């Protein structure tokens, strides 16, 4: 694998915190260049110029940090393009001054950390709901499903992502840990499973519906050239 492929693979691990999907599959990475000297230049684009600055920052900073962890590279430059706060965010990333540094006096890092954690919890709930619904859909009973452990879950992208999210949330993903838990790590009892699923499914629906809208808007923004066509008149 060449340097560029390594960089792209690292970006596969950077998630849109709000949608719980990699920024690569969401098509948010518009370009990725690695110079012969190992300098990296990454350009990110989003569905609208008004996408939330806090999530935008989390993705851009996540991309920078993921690539910086790779060996053998020199400078990593991440630029957020076509965004209302793109210049502020890109400059802050360049200087390493953080989200608060991008918007002096307007916000602080604590708020951003809280937001990140909130969305990790939501993502875990949503992923577990999909796994749970699919197990119940195959006819498994509540008792059997509720007692499953992490290691007993059939392998699937959702199940693998659940492990990552559990690790990030600090609730552990050992094989013998119960598979269906609250974001605080409390197991869901069999008797509560259906009610929990009703709520958890709503969280998943919300993420999916929003992801669908984001995809459509990105497609409209970058696969057509509407604005240029009009301004060329």
């Amino acid at each position: 694998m060449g340097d560029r492929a390594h960089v792209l693979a690292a970006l596969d691990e950077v998630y849109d915190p709000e949608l719980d999907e990699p920024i690569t599959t969401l098509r948010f990475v518009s370009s990725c260049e690695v110079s012969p000297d190992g300098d990296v230049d990454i350009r990110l684009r989003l569905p609208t110029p008004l996408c939330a600055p806090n999530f935008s920052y989390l993705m851009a900073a996540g991309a920078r940090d993921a690539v910086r962890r790779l060996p053998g590279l020199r400078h990593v430059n991440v630029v957020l393009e076509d965004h209302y706060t793109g210049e502020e965010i890109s400059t802050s990333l360049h200087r390493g001054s953080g989200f608060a540094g991008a918007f002096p006096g307007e916000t602080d890092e604590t708020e951003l950390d809280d937001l990140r954690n909130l969305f990790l919890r939501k993502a875990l709930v949503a992923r577990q709901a999909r796994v749970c619904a699919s197990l119940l859909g195959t006819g498994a009973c509540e008792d059997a499903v509720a007692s499953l452990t992490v290691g007993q879950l059939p392998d699937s992208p959702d199940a693998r992502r659940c492990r990552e999210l559990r690790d990030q949330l600090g609730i552990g993903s050992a094989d013998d840990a119960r598979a269906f838990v609250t974001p605080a790590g409390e197991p869901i009892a069999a008797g509560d499973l259906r009610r929990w699923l009703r709520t958890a499914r709503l969280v998943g629906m919300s993420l999916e519906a929003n992801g669908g809208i984001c995809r459509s808007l990105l497609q409209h923004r970058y696969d057509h050239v509407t604005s240029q066509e009009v301004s060329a008149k």
Partner: protein
Amino acid sequence: MYEKDGEKYFIVDGHLHFWDASPSNWVPGAEQYAKGWIECFHAYQSLGPKETHWPLDKFQKYTEADFERDVFEDGHVDVGIFQSTYLNEWYTDGFNTARKNATLAAKHPGRLITNGRWDPREGEAGLRQLEEDAKRYGLKGAKLYTAEWHQGSRGWTLRQPEARPFLDKCVELGIKNIHVHKGPTIWPLDKDAFDVADVDYAATTYPELNFIVEHVGLPRIEDFCFMATQEPNVYAGCAVVIGGLMHARPRFFAKVMGELLFWVGEDKILFGSDYAIWEPKWQIEGFVDWNYPDDEFSDYPAVTTETKKKILGLNAARLYGIDVPAELRLPAQAGSHSGQKDAPLVGGAA
């Protein structure tokens, strides 16, 4: 009024705009924001059926004749509600102000309601303006845009103490319906903009007001739903839900609608086309024809003709005191379902 299969629907479009986002109205120095804003709206239009898409120049500024045709003649709308949106830092004469909306409303007596707006960051001057607007336009509602930029601030919340005098003023002036924009397109910079907790707080503090969460808190529908089940005076404004999903993502639309019916209930969901983002015609006709696509939705609340009549007009008519012709009302109901446990499910099992 829309009639289909012998059923007559009284239509209240709870979310209309008559904006001017043409370049001549862009604030010098803020052109990129004014341009970005309307292009973002235009992108949303692409989620509707292709034959309803407009070229950007028409979308930036459309005429009264366009509005009258799209809303009243083709659009089946009996009464429309303007959700005035100012954005004065980007648009010289405002994006669609109460004044501009009321001018058009005056030409259609009884058919267009103009909602005002307020912003706690404007302080005393804002309170006086609200009083004036209430008198001039007969305000029964206000649209709040907590993401609006104002003199260096990029957002506010209903929790701020500065919002209290304005909510008090709304109670005093009979501005009963508070529409809070919680959804796309823009977010307050430093807050968790998707957070609907500030509406929860205000709704608890002001039980005499109705809070309509526009765009159902998208993308945080779940937080909105959980909150709405707790607060009897919180309603779902489903602008963007129908326009943005029914055509583009029909299965997600079915899920969103099903969840809203389950958690919020058919008595508390209000239709809004969000015109001119989307024309009302295809949304109303499509929604009247709509049902869940298949068995996967068997544990969502059933959707009946009555459900659709309420959402498309009768709920908003109740909130705004709009007189509905007798033939378009529902027969006296033995009891209406208002979400969750008492709603009959598609699959028949309660």
